[in-house]
């Protein structure tokens, strides 16, 4: 066995969930706390590195920047200053294509928090719930509605149609705003703003979403990600991305093991044997499906065309043996 092959085997045999846990923890600490160490990654990060966590954050979520820029008065937005928006988008895009939706599955602090809540539920022994197929199809559209509103409302503010207090409307309802600052001891976002009617409305909506977030994430794996407009935004831009999830339908037995472990309940991952690029708009590229696939090479993660993590029988057996042996 060559050295490269043995490295490949070791990677494919990894205890994936444990690996992912530590990687997520690393990114969480990086994005939420490393600001204190002077880390600054810019204002165009394609993940919920929340701007309301003013001191701890390592960079800012692009959705916040983007909404603020879109709400500029139209004379400014459609002038030379608009180039700033374009260059910002360019940087966001470059960040994004490196990891594709891997930003959701590995980096996003809001996603990581949901995974922790899931672990808490698992510890209590309570089972998770799933949507019915009908609900799934219907609810899956919400993220696009939120994405559209995220464009329309700031543009409308710039045009003078909407109240300026709507500010960055998605940030106001985003659970990242209310929850992430809590980790650096900032409780100021968990409050109602009585200054104007709009502010009161938006902050109460924000708190409602926060409540729903905790309840939802407890009963449903990655509850919020299913509705996240960032996920929809990502998907629309994902064509040239470097990190990809590929499927070889001829090797697939449609056993449904991947669908079984999918946090996002994506049925296509198991059932579609024609598509080679299997990442859907709901996917968070967590790669749990690759780890749960027993057919060699049926599912694989590739980076710039090079396979980096591939489903294998050996890896599958190792991981499931570990699962059965745990906590006996």
């Amino acid at each position, binding site marked *: 066995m060559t050295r490269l092959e043995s490295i490949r085997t070791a990677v494919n045999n990894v205890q994936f969930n444990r690996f992912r846990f530590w990687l997520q923890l690393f990114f969480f600490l990086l994005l939420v706390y490393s600001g204190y160490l002077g880390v600054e990654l810019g204002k165009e990060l394609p993940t919920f590195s929340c701007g309301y966590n003013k001191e701890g954050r390592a960079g800012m979520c692009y959705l916040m920047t983007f909404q603020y820029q879109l709400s500029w008065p139209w004379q400014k937005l459609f002038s030379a200053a608009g180039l700033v928006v374009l260059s910002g988008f360019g940087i966001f895009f470059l960040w994004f294509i490196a990891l594709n939706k891997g930003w959701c599955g590995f980096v996003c602090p809001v996603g990581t928090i949901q995974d922790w809540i899931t672990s808490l539920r*698992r510890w209590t*022994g309570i*089972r*998770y719930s799933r949507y*019915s*197929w009908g609900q799934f199809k219907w609810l899956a559209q919400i993220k696009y509605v939120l994405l559209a509103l995220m464009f329309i409302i700031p543009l409308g503010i710039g045009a003078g149609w909407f109240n300026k207090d709507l500010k960055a409307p998605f940030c106001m309802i985003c659970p990242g705003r209310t929850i992430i600052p809590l980790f650096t001891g900032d409780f100021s976002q968990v409050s109602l703003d009585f200054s104007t009617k709009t502010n009161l409305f938006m902050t109460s909506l924000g708190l409602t979403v926060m409540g729903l977030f905790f309840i939802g994430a407890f009963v449903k794996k990655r509850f919020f990600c299913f509705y996240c407009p960032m996920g929809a935004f990502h998907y629309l831009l994902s064509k040239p991305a470097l990190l990809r999830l590929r499927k070889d*339908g*001829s*090797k*697939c*037995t*449609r*056993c*449904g*093991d*991947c*669908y*079984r*472990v999918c946090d996002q309940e994506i*049925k296509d991952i*198991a*059932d579609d*044997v024609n598509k080679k690029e299997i990442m859907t708009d709901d996917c968070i590229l967590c790669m*749990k499906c690759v780890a*749960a*696939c*027993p057919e060699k090479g049926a599912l694989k993660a590739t980076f710039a065309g090079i396979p980096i993590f591939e489903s294998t*029988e050996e890896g*599958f*057996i190792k991981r*499931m*043996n570990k*699962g*059965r*042996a*745990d*906590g*006996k």
Partner: protein
Amino acid sequence: MESETAIIIPIQPAPFSRSRQAGESQDVLDHIVDDFQDNPESMKYFYDLFRRVYCHGEELKHKGLLIGSTCIQTPEELIYAFGATPMRLCNGSYHYDQRGADFMPAKSCSLVKATLGMLNAETVIPKIGKPDMIVNPTTCDQKKKSSAMMESMGYQVYDLEFPNVKESEASRVYWQRSVRQFAARLRELTGKKLTRKNLKAAMNKTGRAQAAFRKLHSFRLKSPSLILGKDAFLVTNAYFFDDIDRWTLAVEKLNEELAQREKSGFKAVQSKAPRVLFTGSPPIFPNLKLPLLIEESGGVVVTDETCSSNRMLYDMTAVDEWLLNDMVDSLADKYLKPCTCPVFTRNDDRKRRLLDLVSSFNADGVVYQAFAGCQVYEMEYRSVADAFNKAGIPLLYVETDYSPDDKGQLSTRIEAFLESLKNRRKQRA
């Protein structure tokens, strides 16, 4: 008069080994063992097992209640978890096939008839005892109708409701519920509780067995072959009734030997031997007629797509959260989603599976066995043949049953088929 002769020559009950069913098994086993060279040393365990159980009628011990099953769709992990032992009742004996003919119309499946015949017989082999319950998944019509017949023989029968469609979400949910009900029934029957711990232990048993099977499966990828198909079928047939831990150990030992064989460059067949994929109605000991004919004629069965072997052991269960609910649902999924049984409305998965097996095992051709009367396999022949035609892979369709009468005729057909495979390979080379 009769009684007088009886007084003079008292009629002794014949020992089991003299019975017809034992004779039938003995013939096939002798053929498997003696008529082939270089049988793997570790196959001895399996030869002995079949000899003891099928030829001498020796009894097998089992733990807890005995739960018979008429199909691979019965989640055996649940049975183990409740401290009971599963046993697959599907039978391959011509003797029992004839005995079972009373229950079914003339043109029906040998396997179903043989199973009924065995259950209705006084000496049941494998002699593991009378099942405390028989689980009958509602798969094909003939098996469905067997429920009432088995009940009339005095068995307790549980109909495990199985969907006809597997693509839809509705069927998946329905089947998950069905499996839960089955678990509830087992609880009632055994008086034990299903816990995370005992289900994990049960899944460990089957997981280890499956890992061993997969290993054996991947050794068969090698060309020229390291082991003959007749031995592989015997191994998986033993899984029907053997103690699962002992079975797994024996297979692991066989795998070690095959690893040795691979290292030493051993060939179980000639390099030119045509490699055959076997599909269709399941070969079950002693009815290994077709695989044996293929291998006597110089071919080798490199893999199969049948419910007595590959389909029974290949697909493994993935669990995300090791909680009872998720484990049971995962098991349910495993028994439904990858299944390529012809009872379903569509057979795209079966066709894809077959094509994948042909290419990964580098098979030269396919032998498709359909038991006369096994309508679902007969009906699927056309679409499967079309798929192979398109892919340019030769297929031999054989309609047969458990009777040995057609052996001569079949042997001619198979020889001709293998010859054509050889020629084809030469031409391509």
